[in-house]
């Protein structure tokens, strides 16, 4: 079906082997997306009870798509592109290490001023600012395509004119990538940063399909984004229960729509926007359920799904997912003032997708491994590295920006990235006067973007973190 916003450039057709079956796919697809497109929803089984597991996050963060690829176990197939002739097997339930020792991998080495970890809006902006100021920058991202969450956001963004208001997320990604292209940063894609041994400088270990890389950098910006939250309910691991971002990835990056009807859990902006995008992809959205007594997202996003006939059921929650091998239905229930289910108010919807839009948690593995001080800040989505308004952490030369510094938005991620990138460059002695101007302007825009009531919670969280930063960073 044609899509109202997107055109898919799927590339060449390829063929790979899946447990003895030949699967046709496009070279632009990930293995997991190609399997889902073929109707293969069970990508593995849980280790103890052998329950089927399927696609959930689509960005390499949840591990529910681990498979054995060409004999290598535990490959995250959602971020591994298909190739002609590749052998893909599910693990029953755990992978086995190949008998033969792995081939000697040649380690790459690189020496840079700044390493940016994660190429979403925050990382891209940090890399652009630092490169512009003359820093030698490398940027590592573990996904096949750079751009982070932006590459799946087909809707137009809010914000001010300087921050691409009215421009679709996918287009903002193109603009940032084009801008970075014109500068001299080094790109590493499918490159997962696994450790940063921070001392006087940063000694960073990066895992890539060709082998490990060692990158020495004077400064690092951590912009690794976030992981989608799961909530407890019976059968929440059934294939067909997906994260909102995961489903967006399937639909908008790969053009795969893995079902016909959906129930969405969560009426924040993510759930509301996703409902509209499902309608655009031709999916029948039965309802959005929200446990709170009011809608968390913007009224304009709610209004646009309501007028297309999608009900928003407040004070309702998901009771269970129904189905054996995959989602066949969703049972919802009303809750009382203390969020307890009211017996007898259960209602069942026949849907083949249950989409969770129940929040995100910052991805902070790298700073925590490096020893950065952190705190649990509910307003920012969970554990975040302590950072000051310039995004400095307690580890010398380590910055954090975007969702990994607290769940917010792409617009604020870009602004934080600019501050971090410019500050890092200035600390290296590169055009500090120009850097100061960039930082001041970005901080001004951040403050103005955060001035409304919807940002009150984030601002509270940030202020607490800045407060702590005065103690731990000085």
């Amino acid at each position, binding site marked *: 079906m044609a*899509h*109202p916003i997107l055109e898919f450039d799927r590339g060449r057709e390829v063929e790979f082997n899946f447990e003895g079956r030949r699967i046709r796919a496009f070279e632009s697809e990930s293995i997991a997306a190609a399997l889902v497109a073929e109707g293969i929803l069970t990508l593995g089984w849980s280790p103890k009870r052998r329950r089927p597991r399927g696609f959930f996050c689509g960005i390499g963060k949840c591990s529910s798509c681990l498979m054995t690829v060409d004999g290598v176990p535990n490959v995250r197939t959602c971020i591994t592109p298909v190739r002609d002739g590749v052998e893909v097997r599910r693990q029953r339930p755990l992978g086995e290490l190949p008998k033969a020792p792995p081939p000697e991998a040649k380690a790459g080495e690189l020496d840079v001023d700044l390493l940016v970890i994660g190429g979403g809006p925050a990382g891209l902006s940090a890399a652009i600012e630092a490169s512009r100021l003359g820093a030698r920058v490398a940027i590592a991202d573990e996904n096949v395509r750079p751009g982070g969450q932006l590459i799946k956001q087909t809707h137009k*963004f*809010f914000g*001010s004119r300087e921050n691409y208001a009215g421009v679709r997320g996918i287009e903002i990604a193109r603009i940032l990538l084009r801008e970075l292209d014109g500068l001299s940063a080094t790109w590493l894609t499918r490159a997962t940063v696994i450790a940063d041994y921070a001392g006087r400088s940063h000694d960073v270990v990066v895992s890539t399909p060709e082998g490990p890389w060692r990158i020495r950098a004077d400064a690092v910006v951590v912009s690794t984004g976030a992981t989608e939250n799961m909530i407890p309910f019976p059968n929440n691991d059934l294939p067909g229960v997906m994260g909102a971002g995961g489903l967006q990835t399937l639909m908008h990056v790969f053009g795969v729509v893995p079902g016909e009807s959906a129930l969405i859990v969560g009426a924040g902006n993510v759930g509301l926007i996703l409902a509209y995008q499902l309608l655009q992809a031709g999916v029948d959205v039965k309802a959005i359920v929200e446990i709170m007594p*009011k809608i968390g997202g913007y009224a*304009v996003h709610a*209004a646009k799904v309501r007028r*297309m006939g999608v009900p928003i059921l407040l004070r309702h929650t998901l009771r269970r997912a129904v189905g054996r091998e995959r989602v066949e239905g969703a049972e919802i229930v009303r809750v009382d003032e203390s969020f307890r289910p009211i017996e007898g108010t259960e209602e069942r919807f026949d849907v083949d997708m249950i989409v969770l839009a129940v929040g995100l948690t910052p991805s902070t593995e790298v700073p925590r491994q490096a020893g950065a001080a952190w705190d649990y800040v509910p307003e920012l989505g969970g554990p975040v590295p302590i950072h000051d308004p310039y995004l400095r952490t307690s580890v010398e030369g380590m910055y954090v920006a975007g969702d990994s510094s607290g769940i917010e938005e792409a617009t604020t991620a870009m602004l934080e990235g600019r501050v971090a990138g410019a500050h890092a460059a200035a600390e290296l002695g590169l055009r500090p006067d120009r850097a100061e101007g960039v930082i001041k302007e970005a901080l001004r825009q951040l403050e103005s973007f955060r001035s*409304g009531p919807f940002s009150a919670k984030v601002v509270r969280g940030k202020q607490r973190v800045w407060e702590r930063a005065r103690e731990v960073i000085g």
Partner: protein
Amino acid sequence: MSEPGVIPEDVLAELLPPDEKAEGRAVAVIECHEEIPCDTCRWVCPVKAVIKPAITTPPRCDWDACIGCGTCVLACPGLAIFMVKLDGEWAEVSVPYEFLPVPKRGEVVWALDRVGRRVATAEVVRAVTSKDRTSMVTIRVPRGLAHSVRAILPPEEGTEG
């Protein structure tokens, strides 16, 4: 209590143009009332008819200045701007539209209200699509529906409509 996700009646009343401002001429109806960080409508308007002192102040339309060009309808990321033109017994309502297929002039579509109810069938008077793929579809409805119709749906195959 009002319907979740539907603009409350009293808030809406403040946002609708008085009849005389929309009689015989299309004007923007901006159904955006929260303090959200967005000011796209303000800077796209060619005649500065959108009043919005700060990025988080809800926009208001200066209907005397508005020339009914539809630029803001196509640009608004919240798909929250419509146009209404009153015309005797009839009214033209323009809605933003991001689905396929985009109906053509002369086609008959369902007119939906704010909760997706099919309140009338309506003829498409005009449809334009911007470079970034948002369309604006203008339909003709009875005057009494000018401020309740806010979406369209192409008729299903095999149904009369």
